């Protein structure tokens, strides 16, 4: 099945998605990788406000390549980064914020339970940064640029961003894990 979603997302928008479905997203996605995840959780711990809203948000595991001309930021290339580096911080993130979509590559470990009835993981083709930049229309804001260009939180306005493959759905189905399990049994037979 193919779905077209718009942010901000409600729980109902993602409940019908099944692992293996194809999704296109329009609206705003927020980039966040290692350092941004750590800072989000740090501020939450200290009871401080974030400079952006994660309510119904789509988080993109991405450290984009940006260029600034005359004060305006423009995306040069913005493909997904390896999501698994964020696996350990993701359950805490989902516990504290109503993030509905995670976009990245390569799948995640031990997050399917935390994502149940809350959030889906969507896989974008790794390395396809030139392709991705075509569906990013604007860069409304950037936060935490002190973390460096790749680690900052970039607000990206996207139109029909995809195709994204549902890797982990809200029922706990994890496409990557099932493929890896099959691969492991093939390996043992070799």
């Amino acid at each position, binding site marked *: 099945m193919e779905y077209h979603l718009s942010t901000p997302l409600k729980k109902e928008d993602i409940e019908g998605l099944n692992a293996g479905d194809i999704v296109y997203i329009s609206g705003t996605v927020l980039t966040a990788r290692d350092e941004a995840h750590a800072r989000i959780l740090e501020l939450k711990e200290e009871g401080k406000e974030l400079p952006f809203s994660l309510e119904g948000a789509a988080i993109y595991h991405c450290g984009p390549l940006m260029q600034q001309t005359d004060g305006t930021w423009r995306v040069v290339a913005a493909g997904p980064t390896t999501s698994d580096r964020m696996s350990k911080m993701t359950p805490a993130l989902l516990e504290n914020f109503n993030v509905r979509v995670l976009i990245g590559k390569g799948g995640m470990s031990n997050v399917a339970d935390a994502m149940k009835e809350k959030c889906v993981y969507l896989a974008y083709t790794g*390395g396809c940064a030139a392709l991705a930049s075509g569906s990013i229309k604007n860069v409304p804001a950037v936060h935490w640029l002190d973390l460096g260009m790749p680690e900052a939180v970039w607000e990206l306005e996207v139109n029909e961003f995809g195709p994204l493959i549902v890797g982990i759905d809200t029922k706990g189905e994890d496409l990557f894990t099932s493929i890896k399990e099959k691969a492991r049994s093939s390996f043992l037979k070799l």
Partner: protein
Amino acid sequence: MVTDMVTYKNVVEATVDIIREAETQLPDDVIDALKSARQNESSDVAISQIDAILKNIEIASNNNIPLCQDTGILIFYVEIGRELKLDIDLKGAILEASRIATQEVPLRPNAVHPITRSNSNDNTGDGLPDIKYDFVEGDQLKITVAPKGAGSENMSALKMMNPTELKDIRKFILETVLNAGGRPCPPIIVGVGIGGSFDKAARLAKAALLRKVTDMNDEEKGILKDINSLGIGPMGLGGDTTALAVHLATSYCHTASLPVAINIQCWANRHASVVLGGDE
């Protein structure tokens, strides 16, 4: 072929050019391998991933923009002809080219201090770019750049094996690919260094990634077949194409040692070269 003289200015310019070429144009042998993998794929999801990759390659090439936002850290291989008179600051020229390319291509500033994680913002820093020098026959200077992304680099592995464990090398390669799953952006290219020393095995593995994708002997083809039988597929989403190539490189080693290094490379096996000097 007419080449430019080896001057500081020419080295800087030529190095910026090869960085741009490597970042925006994938070598033909890799593109051909991806196209033929698409033909042989049986999984629809896998085909969708390879199609996205091929489309991405075309967009990057036509628009002269980097294939991947992870423009890597810059690895240089410099071959110096032993008859070449080299009286310029070669390292300085390569560093300057890296800074210029960061602005002009542009490249994502990826170089950070390992502990403080502070970003130099120009892709240089103590130890980066990584430049490997070698002396060869002739009177020319050859510079090759291979930008290396972290997604695949992080999935690499090195093991000091027992010399009697020779038959476990294949198992080590397969396990490394299996554990990596979709994380290194398959279809991958697997460089394997066998022998040498702790660090030499790793250098062999990395240099093996520069070989033509199709340049494989029967042993390498056999390992490739085993890897692809795992069904990890493009991006770990399942399929017949987990790897495009396996390249083994060997070196004599200590009688008590068997170092084996596996350097994983994503589908974007980026590299470009230039030759300067000679025939004056």
